[in-house]
């Protein structure tokens, strides 16, 4: 297990290095400069400033310098937020994004699993069809439409919840709901399909034949086996949700990380592009690793250390 973990860790570092390198060179292909006031500056004035930030050096030189700083844990300072360290920029914003993502994930997964299981157990009944329709709607309605409708009807018309801002738990309810719709729908669909397959398999039949109660069969034998594909999609979904979503954060004025990545690309804010990419990738790689470990936890047949060479 330890050896496996170490091996995976090294692979993770290599992956990260490749991502950082590719991003760096692709980013340098972006047209334009990171100057904020570009349209007002003459070419000579632009040169003075680019010189100051070392952006007139050849790209490979900039790349080596960047890697050097990265190795020291220094992600540089932002251009759009003058002199603000990128690490601070990310750490200031990741909290709300992570909280929202996490809430949406937990809520969405629980509801999704329940919905999926019910649909599978009551296969081809009105309940199944309703659940399926809900799932299709959830997948196809963009979250900004759902978010906008929630905000208008629940926030403005009914005044049940605050319209926007980030000041306490009640402020997180609507964005969480808006975000979790997609989670619910995806999980429910997967769960239904998997559950149907599992419930039709021989060992379930055996279990039933042995006289185990219906509830026991579904949750003890069925659910655990049906969870494997769910775990697989849950990992990347978690990263996506917890690193912030542009649209929902904008609609509910959540002070999250969601917009930074897109914004930094539009503004050619090189250090922020690199910082957010590396952060996002590292998180992603880590989650994939955790998912691999979870497989073993949920299904003993998949044992990482078990496959001795």
């Amino acid at each position, binding site marked *: 297990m330890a050896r496996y973990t170490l091996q995976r860790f090294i692979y993770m570092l290599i992956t990260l290095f490749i991502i950082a390198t590719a991003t760096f060179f692709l980013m340098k292909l972006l047209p334009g400069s990171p100057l904020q006031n570009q349209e*007002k500056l003459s070419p000579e004035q632009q040169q*003075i*400033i680019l010189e100051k930030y070392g952006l007139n050096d050849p790209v490979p030189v900039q790349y080596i310098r960047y890697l050097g700083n990265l190795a020291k844990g220094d992600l540089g300072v932002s251009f759009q937020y003058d002199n603000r360290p990128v690490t*601070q920029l990310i750490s200031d914003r990741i909290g709300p994004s992570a909280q929202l993502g*996490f809430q949406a994930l937990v809520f969405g997964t629980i509801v999704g699993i329940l919905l999926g299981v019910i649909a599978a157990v009551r296969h081809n009944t009105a309940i199944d069809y309703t659940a399926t329709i809900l799932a299709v709607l959830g997948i196809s309605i963009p979250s900004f439409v759902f978010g906008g409708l929630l905000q208008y009807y629940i926030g403005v018309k009914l005044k049940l919840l605050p319209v926007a801002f980030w000041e306490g738990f009640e402020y997180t309810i609507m964005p969480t709901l808006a975000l979790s719709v997609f989670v619910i729908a995806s999980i429910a669909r997967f769960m239904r399909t998997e559950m149907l397959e599992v419930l039709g398999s021989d060992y379930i039949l055996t279990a039933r034949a042995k006289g185990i109660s219906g509830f026991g069969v579904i949750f003890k034998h069925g659910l*655990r086996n049906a969870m494997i594909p769910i775990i697989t999609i849950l990992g990347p979904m978690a990263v996506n949700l917890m690193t912030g979503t542009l649209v929902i954060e904008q609609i509910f*004025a959540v*002070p999250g990380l969601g*917009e930074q990545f897109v914004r930094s690309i539009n503004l050619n804010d090189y250090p922020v592009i690199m910082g957010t990419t590396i952060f996002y990738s590292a998180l992603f790689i880590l989650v994939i690793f955790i998912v691999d470990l979870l497989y073993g936890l*949920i299904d003993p047949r998949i044992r990482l250390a078990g496959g001795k060479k």
Partner: protein
Amino acid sequence: MKKKLSIFFVLLLVASMVLAACGGKKEEDKTANEGEKPAQEAPAKEQVLNLLETSEIPSLDSTLATDSVSFRVMNNVFEGLYRLDQNNEPTPGMAESYEVSEDGKVYTFKLRDAKWSNGEPVTANDFVYAWRKALDPNTGAEYAYIMYDIKNAEEVNTGKVPVDQLGVKAVDEKTLQVELKNPIPYFLSLLAFPTFYPQNEKFVKEQGDKYGLEANTTLYNGPFVLSEWKHEQSFQLKKNEQYWDAQTVKLETINFNIVKDVATGVNLYETNKADRVGLSAEFVDKYSSDKNFKTKSEPVLFFIRMNQKNEVLKNVNARKAIAMGFDKEAMVATILNNGSKAANYFVPEGFVTGPNGKDFREENGDLVKFNAEEAKKYWEQAKKELGKDKVTLELLNYDSESAKKIGEFLKEQLETNLPGLTVNIKQQPFKQKLDLESKMQYELSFAGWGPDYQDPMTFIDMFVTNGAHNQTGWSNAEYDKLVQDAKTTLLSDLQARWDAMVKAEKILLDEAVIAPMYQRGAAYLEREYVKGIVDHPFGPDNSYKWAYIE
């Protein structure tokens, strides 16, 4: 196995509680803060203004800031020698009075007894320090050029002479002497621009890298102080009791929340969480009859640049045809719908008045109006001269919502009104558009310009031969001479200087160097109890110094 699974869920639960607790803590902090609020001295209305801002404050370092959000905040928490008053005239700020030498080149400012928010006095050295810092090439200040009228400023900024050669010196603690390269007539209003704000050297050096990054690592000398700054979320201004003119300031608190989505802003306004909110075109119809609906005109002009390296656009008749060939009124009414005005001119309306007290627009009026028939005549003439029947031009555009729609509108209008013309739209990211324009790799382009200082020259000098922002290849000796004279010899006769600029604008549009489209406007909703927010035409957009709740 069941145990492990349940442990996993228990962990999830614990984590969710921890996160929820984080959220809860924030709220506790907030209520604690509210509890500390000083008891109101019972005015008619609580003097609290709730506003929205479109982004996190990018910078609070006056030498580095470039954007409107930073400028808006800075104008209300800092103060330069002068600030713009309710009528947009420069009024003394940190300065109490000034004397100017006979040649108009040496200004001596007497500073008033003003204090920084930590109680230290604002001194002449605070200005010397900040201005040198802004021009020091090692600072990389993007607005350094705005100071180029000061003696040696450009030389300092380009590293040709050391910073101590800058024409600014502290004669004593309360006397600041500024030497100019040319006796510009708009110097006092220029001093209201954020790059000219002072900075307390000792404090800035103590804070080092952290200066201007947090509410408590910044020092204030304006009508308000930044009392709280939650990044990406909100910030709060409180009345600055140390401010020299604190008796004028009525507002106790201004709360800003960061809201990027216009629809969200409108919903917050509807639920009384915001007192003033900007509207985009799609909301104008819904609210245009609302009693709180307002529009304002801004001195920002949008126009089509025409690259004269292109053989068609080198032809003056072709350019005139284009400049007259699209319906600007329809453009502002149907696409923008926010108080923007069709522009038949280059120097915006309501931006600057001359020595004779007249607005610049009263002098020249409409110079190039939409006229489909005239346009067609010029176009036929141009085609004849060029010996062409069919012409294809590319319109360089960028990816903003209104720019996209206007691009389509222009294409349709020009192709309809000018037979034989095909317009292809080339849409680029904004920064790439700027790059292509400056390299003159375009034919037509969607361009805009806003003022840097309160003088027509900020527009007029764009189009001098080989000017950095000319970007059309146009060159006209008479125009160049008018601009040159207005910048030098005519500085002693301001009316003649004014007339020269009036004449220059006429030449520019007679030759149809550009095709003006519209002067930008903005629509917003403002609650009826909000009074006295002042909008400014250049530099920072708003002052809250005189605002109050009724």
